């Protein structure tokens, strides 16, 4: 008899997951953040160039890559602070740290600054993992330390030349942002030890965060990522509220998708309408819950913390 039917996570890990879920719900209940549920199956999906959605064969619906759009519609409708624990789906993402179906914790805080949200993320991580020491470093700071270039000023050509000098890279059609990602994943992330918040990203990586102009002229995206021993755990934004700007960015994504020969994605018109009605000034963050469980249990492969990962279906 084959043993393929067996789960990847042992019973102790399943129990740990259940406890982390309870602790998370308690954490938000204490702070009066409302738990919500929004649909997994949507009529439109993220336009991001690097996200590939699962879609129904007739193209009428998509599985969500994150609950962001639906939660923002709730915020625009006056929900106040909300959180959600839900399944998200990203096609093609499969590695020791990725499973195409995974559990996301996402929450939004109207009236919070990005700094305040980072502190709240730190409090949650302390509650769940017992980590009490966090450092806070700008993207420029860590990039200069591990790569030796200014990530806000260096050109795509400079980043590429430097990369080809140090690494053997087979890649065509990479833009400035992609070269930054290469450096982050190959040099910066492996170098980050302990708990590190990295904030103020290059403006091209703003996604749906606000862009701010800094003295000296560089533009930064007001977002952060939390790394625990080099593993990306959370991704937080000072949320873009301007409807016109949102529409423009979605259009830019669509143009870039076309340029790269990716399937077209129509921007979510109901999200745009919600923004036109008015999204309250807020900060939001998404946290990979399975990765927290990996750190809690010391498992090196996401397969060991899921009942059934893709390879066990």
């Amino acid at each position, binding site marked *: 008899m084959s043993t393929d039917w067996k789960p990847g996570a042992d019973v102790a890990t399943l129990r740990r997951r259940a406890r982390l879920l309870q602790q998370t719900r308690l954490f938000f209940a204490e702070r009066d953040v409302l738990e919500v549920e929004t649909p997994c199956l949507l009529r439109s999906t993220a336009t991001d160039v690097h996200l590939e959605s699962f879609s129904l064969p007739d193209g009428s619906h998509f599985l969500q890559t994150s609950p962001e759009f639906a939660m923002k519609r709730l915020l625009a409708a006056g929900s106040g602070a909300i959180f959600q624990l839900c399944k998200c789906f990203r096609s093609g993402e499969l590695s020791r740290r990725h499973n195409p179906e995974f559990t996301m914790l996402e929450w939004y805080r109207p009236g919070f600054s990005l700094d305040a949200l980072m502190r709240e993320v730190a409090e949650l991580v302390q509650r769940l993992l017992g980590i009490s020491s966090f450092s806070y470093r700008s993207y420029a700071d860590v990039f200069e330390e591990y790569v030796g270039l200014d990530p806000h000023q260096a050109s795509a050509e400079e980043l590429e030349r430097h990369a080809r000098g140090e690494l053997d890279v087979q890649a065509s059609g990479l833009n400035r942002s*992609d070269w930054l990602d290469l450096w982050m*994943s190959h040099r910066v992330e492996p170098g980050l030890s302990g708990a590190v918040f990295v904030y103020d990203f290059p403006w091209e990586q703003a*996604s749906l965060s606000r862009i701010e102009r800094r003295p000296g002229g560089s533009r930064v995206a007001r977002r952060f990522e939390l790394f625990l021993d080099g593993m990306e755990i959370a991704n937080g934004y000072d949320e873009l509220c301007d409807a016109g700007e949102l529409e423009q960015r979605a259009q830019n994504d669509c143009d870039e998708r076309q340029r790269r020969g990716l399937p077209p994605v129509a921007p979510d018109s109901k999200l745009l309408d919600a923004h036109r009605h008015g999204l309250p000034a807020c900060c939001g963050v998404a946290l990979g819950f399975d990765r927290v469980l990996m750190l809690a249990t010391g498992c090196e492969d996401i397969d060991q913390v899921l009942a059934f990962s893709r390879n066990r279906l």
Partner: protein
Amino acid sequence: MASYSTSEFRSGLKVMLDGDPCTIVENEIVKPGKGQAFNRVKLRNLKTGRTWERTFKSGESVEGADVMDQDMEYLYNDGDFWYFMDPVTYEQHQADKAAVADAAQWLKEQNLCVVTLYNGSPLSVTPPNFVELEIVETDPGVRGDTASGGSKPARLATGATVKVPLFLEQGEVIKVDTRSGDYVGRVKAG
């Protein structure tokens, strides 16, 4: 030959890179949440044996290499080439010095080896993990010394030199691990 996308990369896959056949040793995907994904791939060049790491943008593809491993019986060498035979088809292949390389010192006639064929020609030869070979030259044995732990060099019939315990004599047959070149034990005569 087929081409393979990064999503089909797995260890053991043989691909052509920079004109040489290579095997994928390890494949790791790195991807920032909303950023570009890359495959960090550890590769071994099957011609030179060199191992190195190359990063591919996820979605890139590479050409497959016509490389296969086949069990073959070693026949003889004529000074220039080593001859192997497929025990099923009786087809013979000649391998040059570059292909046989260090394996030459372990090749004993009629032993079954793994011959890696590239475009139908031997690219490399892997001897059996364990071979039994006769000592053709070593210092006289120290009778009864089976415990002192000392060792001496011994030259074997195939040309290899290994370290053996002091009590062994010329003419004895020993078992050797070809991966490490270590003496494993004495093979009792008869």
